[in-house]
């Protein structure tokens, strides 16, 4: 594993529970993703994602309830528009669109979660560390023990 | 603007750099006011630090920011000093999180003090409300420490409810004194309160201290100050006899950053103490 910084914004009701399930079921998945739990993907202001990139994140993953299953009925419908627009805008900002991914994982899809994280981590791994972001505040890289969560 | 004070505590060589200090004690005054007792970490500075009543300081929570407060302790107390802080914004909220042992940084003292030397031999009337007692507390300590230099001392201190009155221990001491005429008042009646009830300006009018050979000092919420000034005027106090201390948004505290000016005068260096007569000469930009 690497010193990549991956940030995951997960909705509380589906994806966080799905990730939890993957964990309790001891499914094998890389441990680089730093998860931030939010009530709903509707709370994911695209600026949170951009701020993460400017502060040195190498990849950002957003995951919520499947369309139609939002705990608040419509939060992820709003999110879908915003996140899709962000996805299309990233190249203009000078950020590789491949560093961002949004998807839907339900509370019962532990296996799917493990796949999503594995694929995403692999993808960012191949893209490598993000270039100097231009943010003077991008802090010094924190040396961390590589770790992997597995059974 | 009244007395020029040498600025010993802020280093003339680097006036924007604060000195580390440690919180000795946090006293909860009211639901949103706390008094911090602080001491400079540098023992020599802690020993030599002195100020005069009315002077202000800049308290930093490094990381959250810096804000200006009146020094509220007795100038005669050596080794430590107090700031009394009302929780209102980002920095004051961080200040309210502090506990004994926490590290802060301080630039003090700044600004001009009350012209207490000029007041010798006169009667002094202090009129204050809420957190406005902070600078007057320091002044009162000073006057009591030099009690023989002054004639009658009167303090009217008010707040909305008994729970909003600060400095409980000090108030007990002040009430016990015979050489101080002290009235604490609250805005409306309240169970458990057998003291004075009434708005500060009306209580001052009832007490009716004579303006002859007297000086009045007022500090409190803007609305209280406005009516207190009207009352004092009615009672015959001239503008040269009335003093107040101003509060403005400040950053540098040394007359450079450009925010706190009233016309050409800077509250941080020319104030914060002004007589009403002096204020009358300045543009109305309060």
């Amino acid at each position: 594993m690497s010193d990549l910084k991956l940030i995951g914004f997960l909705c509380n009701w589906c994806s966080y529970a799905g990730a939890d399930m993957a964990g309790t079921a001891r499914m094998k998945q890389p441990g680089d993703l730093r998860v931030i739990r939010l009530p709903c993907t509707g709370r994911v202001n695209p600026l949170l994602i951009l701020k993460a990139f400017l502060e040195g994140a190498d990849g950002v993953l957003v995951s919520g309830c499947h369309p139609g299953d939002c705990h608040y009925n419509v939060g992820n419908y709003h999110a879908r528009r915003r996140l899709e627009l962000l996805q299309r805008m990233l190249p203009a900002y000078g950020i590789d669109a491949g560093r961002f991914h949004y998807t839907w994982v339900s509370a019962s899809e532990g296996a799917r979660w493990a796949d999503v994280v594995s694929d995403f981590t692999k993808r960012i791994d191949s893209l490598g560390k993000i270039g100097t972001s231009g943010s003077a505040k991008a802090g010094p890289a924190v040396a961390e023990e590589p770790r992997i969560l597995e059974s | 603007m009244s007395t020029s004070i040498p600025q010993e505590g802020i280093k003339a060589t680097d006036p924007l750099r604060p000195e580390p200090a440690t919180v000795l004690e946090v006293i909860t005054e009211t639901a949103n006011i706390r008094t911090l007792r602080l001491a400079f970490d540098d023992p020599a500075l802690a020993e030599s630090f002195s100020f005069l009543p009315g002077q202000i300081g800049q308290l930093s929570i490094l990381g959250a920011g810096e804000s200006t407060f009146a020094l509220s302790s007795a100038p005669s107390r050596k080794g430590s000093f107090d700031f009394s802080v009302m929780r209102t914004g980002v920095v004051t909220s961080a200040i309210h999180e502090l506990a004994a042992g926490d590290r802060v940084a301080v630039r003090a003292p700044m600004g001009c003090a009350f012209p207490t030397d000029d007041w010798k031999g006169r009667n002094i009337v202090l009129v204050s409300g809420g957190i406005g007692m902070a600078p007057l507390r320091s002044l009162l300590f000073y006057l009591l420490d030099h009690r023989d230099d002054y004639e009658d001392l009167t303090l009217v201190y008010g707040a909305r409810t008994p729970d909003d009155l600060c400095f409980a221990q000090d108030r007990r001491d002040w009430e016990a004194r015979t050489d101080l005429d002290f009235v604490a008042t609250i805005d409306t009646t309240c169970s458990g309160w057998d003291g004075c009830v009434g708005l500060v300006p009306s209580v001052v009018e009832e007490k009716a201290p004579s303006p002859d050979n007297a000086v009045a000092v007022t500090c409190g919420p803007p609305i209280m100050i406005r009516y207190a000034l009207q009352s004092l005027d009615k009672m015959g106090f001239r503008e040269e006899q009335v003093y107040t201390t101003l509060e403005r948004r400040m950053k540098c505290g040394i007359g450079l950053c450009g925010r706190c000016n009233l016309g050409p005068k800077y509250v941080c260096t020319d104030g914060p103490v002004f007589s009403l007569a002096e204020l009358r000469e300045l543009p109305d930009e309060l």
Partner: protein
Amino acid sequence: MRFISGENIPELLESFSAGGSVVWAPRELTGSGGTVLFERWQTGDPIDLEHFSSLSAKDVVLPRTEKLFGYTYAFGGGGLGTSGLGGPSVGGLGGALGGAPGEKLVIEPAPPEPPTVLFGARACDAKALNVLDALFNNPEGSGYKDPQYQSRRDALTVITLACTTCDEACFCSSFGSGNAEKAGSDIILYPADGGLLAEAVTKAGEALLAGPLFEETQMSPPPLAETTRIEGLESLEKKLPGIFDDMDFWQRISERCISCGFCTYGCPTCYCFNIHDEMKGDREGERQRTWDACMFALYTQETSGHNPRPTLAHRYRNRINHKFSYYPENQGMILCTGCGRCIRGCPAGLDIRDVLSEALKESSKEQ
């Protein structure tokens, strides 16, 4: 009079650089629609001595952002800090700062500034340094020295290019000797055939001109440009207080303004600043000083919600009064050198000369 040939100018800058100096020179930036700014010069960088820069050169003494000092909450034993997750720069100010029990607060001053050469400033830029000295580098006058300003100022050599042409926004002739002003400069350069004439103003300038890249010449300097002139600006110090309370006037002259901060940020003499802390992680950070502008509402906004200058007109009034009344009263100099940058760059087409003329007219009327 000394002379340096055109092709020797990069070499001159190179020699400053090689001597350990930071060199600032005007340059047109790529993809900027012709914006010329004073930038840190590096070998090979072009310089633009023809166009007037959009921003002043005040960065060299009052950087847009500077570190005042660094601080660290250093563990001296004890457990983890009381703070929550993240510092203020990341997650708001929720976490308690102030250090955990056993932590010490260490404050480290910013490192000293290297010597600096400002090349290609104009008389209005150089004079502005002189005007700022009256406040920032004048212990008798202002009561404090600003050590950061002072150390930069002491380490600064100013090489000024005299203007033989000017544009429609220039009005330095309204102030003292105008374009021929030498205050603030160490050397004055004049355009000449094949290069630049150089005249020393200070001892430091003299020493530099003795260098091998300069030669003695009999040429004499060309005539300098004469700009538009407004008479009577000195009288505003006493006149402006007379119209202070005429809010209709301030409203009227500022109605075009959209309340951005360009006029203050582009100005060579506007010096107001903000002080703020920036965390790096949650145990350390630095206190910074950054340009601030009196045209912003938040500048004087108090936490209680009260704002002593609640409207644009109040803020504009303060700006004009500060420059033409308060500063002259306190520091003895007008806080303006007539460079015209606030006019050229104003997105709303507001011309300070119109405002000053109106103010002169209005105040004469009321007196």
